[in-house]
């Protein structure tokens, strides 16, 4: 029974991280109407930026290295948009997606070039966790949950209480109309990238804290982020949150019954299941 609760906790933990992935992904989808295939790499680079700043020659402790790491991630996100996606704003969908895929590949191998393909960690020893009600939870994991909550609250405030948030929602609803009405779409878009990058960076760091760093961590998490997005309804940021938690739980409870080698496939399986059962929710209208 303890084992079950432990799995549930792990599931919620992973779910929080996936929720942040999905929220970032769906934000960009909502504002620019395409699935950023390179989002996984934004996540991955966020994690590596921190690693870079914590290592030689900077050697900064985590709390201090965090801000510059996120700033670098934001830079990367805005750069992605400026150099790859903006020139293709009016191109056809296939062209855009192929470019995004190429970008993802470029970034992934960039990381491999700089840091190699071996698994790396931030170097915190695994301290023994507190035992509450028979479940073990480490300080790391508490940090993960708290950070996720902070991020989620922040996003909420941003979206529903700020003017920029309103602009973003307007742009995501109808880009043409927003432009005509004078909503500053350019800034709204940039802002969306900033937020998405922060979410990606934070979630990448949390993931690396919980597991490890490797250049390939982007791709499989893209699929999971996407599955979570689908579950919650594409473009719906709170749906993405919920979807993330569900996927996290499904993964950790799922490995109780199926082989752990397929843990990463569970998200995919859920996605396929959704497609079979409720395709109407996902049929995008052809433009």
């Amino acid at each position: 029974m303890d084992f079950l609760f432990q799995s549930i906790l792990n599931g919620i933990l992973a779910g929080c991280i996936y929720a942040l992935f999905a929220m970032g992904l769906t934000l960009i989808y909502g504002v620019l109407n395409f699935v950023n295939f390179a989002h996984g790499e934004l996540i991955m680079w966020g994690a590596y930026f921190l690693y870079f700043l914590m290592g030689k020659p900077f050697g900064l402790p985590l709390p201090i290295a965090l801000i510059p790491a996120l700033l670098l991630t934001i830079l990367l996100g805005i750069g992605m948009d400026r150099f790859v996606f903006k020139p293709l704003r009016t191109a056809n969908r296939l062209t855009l997606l192929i470019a995004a895929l190429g970008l993802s590949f470029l970034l992934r191998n960039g990381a491999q070039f700089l840091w190699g393909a071996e698994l790396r960690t931030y170097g915190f020893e695994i301290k023994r966790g507190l035992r509450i009600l028979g479940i073990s939870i480490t300080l790391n994991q508490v940090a993960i949950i708290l950070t996720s909550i902070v991020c989620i609250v922040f996003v909420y405030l941003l979206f529903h209480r700020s003017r920029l948030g309103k602009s973003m929602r307007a742009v995501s609803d109808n880009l043409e109309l927003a432009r005509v009405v004078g909503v500053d779409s350019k800034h709204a878009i940039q802002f969306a990238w900033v937020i998405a990058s922060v979410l990606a960076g934070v979630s990448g760091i949390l993931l690396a804290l919980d597991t490890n760093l490797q250049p390939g961590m982007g791709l499989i998490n893209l699929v999971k982020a996407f599955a979570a997005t689908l579950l919650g309804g594409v473009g719906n940021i709170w749906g993405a949150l919920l979807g993330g938690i569900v996927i996290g739980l499904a993964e950790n409870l799922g490995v109780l019954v199926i082989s752990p080698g397929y843990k990463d496939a569970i998200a995919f399986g859920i996605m396929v299941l959704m497609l079979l059962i409720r395709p109407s929710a996902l049929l995008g209208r052809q433009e």
Partner: protein
Amino acid sequence: MDLFLHLCVMIIIYIIFAMSLNLEVGYTGLFNFGHIAFFGIGAYTSALLTLQQVPFELSLLIALAMAGIWGFLLSIPSLRLRGDYFGIVTLGFGEIIRMVFQNEVWLTKGPMGLPGIPKPILFSYRFATLPQYLLLTLGFAALTFLILRIILRSPFGRVLRAIREDEVAAEALGKNVFFFRIKSFVIGSLFAGLAGTLWGHYTTFISPGDFTLLETILVLLIVVLGGKGTEWGPVLGAFVLIFFQESLRFLRLPAEWTRYLAPLQQMIFGGLLIVLMIFRPEGLLKEKGRVSNAGN
């Protein structure tokens, strides 16, 4: 000389692989980013069967069938989706298949791979040496080219292109878009399986690490660089890229460099894809059709 022949074999295998993707992406407008899965299914199926002494003719047919069947199974739930969604699903599928190759050790020997794949014996003729294998692949490539050409130049192929251009209009003209897409996808998967089979028997050793996103990116690059939606595009693209990829392998470089060289080469591929899409998305060969100013 051997290097030259090796290059030719690799190029031709990738031509087949690229032609199969071109059918799906270039002609039908399907965003298949997991095409390597079917290449791998073909390779593993034929390898496993021939290792069990099943004659090559049969192994090949079964490998093709497996690739086609899995193409069918994947497409049923996902082909009604809009482009990006379908793209992610196929991407995910590619990863899942790789996981299957990796985890089902009882079947595929997992990460250790399958060594000693026998050379094919087709109609009592054994294609063991390099020139013989070149002949074999050339024959299959020509066959593939002809079959696909017949399909693409037919009314069926016309409908595929119409679907790519505007599926709503195609549907309004009475074409069952879903069925056409499925057929296109299955045929594409089938020929990808063929390419995979030929590749497996050529390298005689396959492992899950051979069927990753890199290969999908490579074949995608070949198709778009060469010119998607054209008959000779995949051929041209394969020549250019495989030549680049393989010849790098044969430069005698110090061992420490390879750690950096592989990701660097792949960064170039990624970057090339981006640059291509921004500056020349049609690729090298454009689709036929007079583009002169129509005026009024």
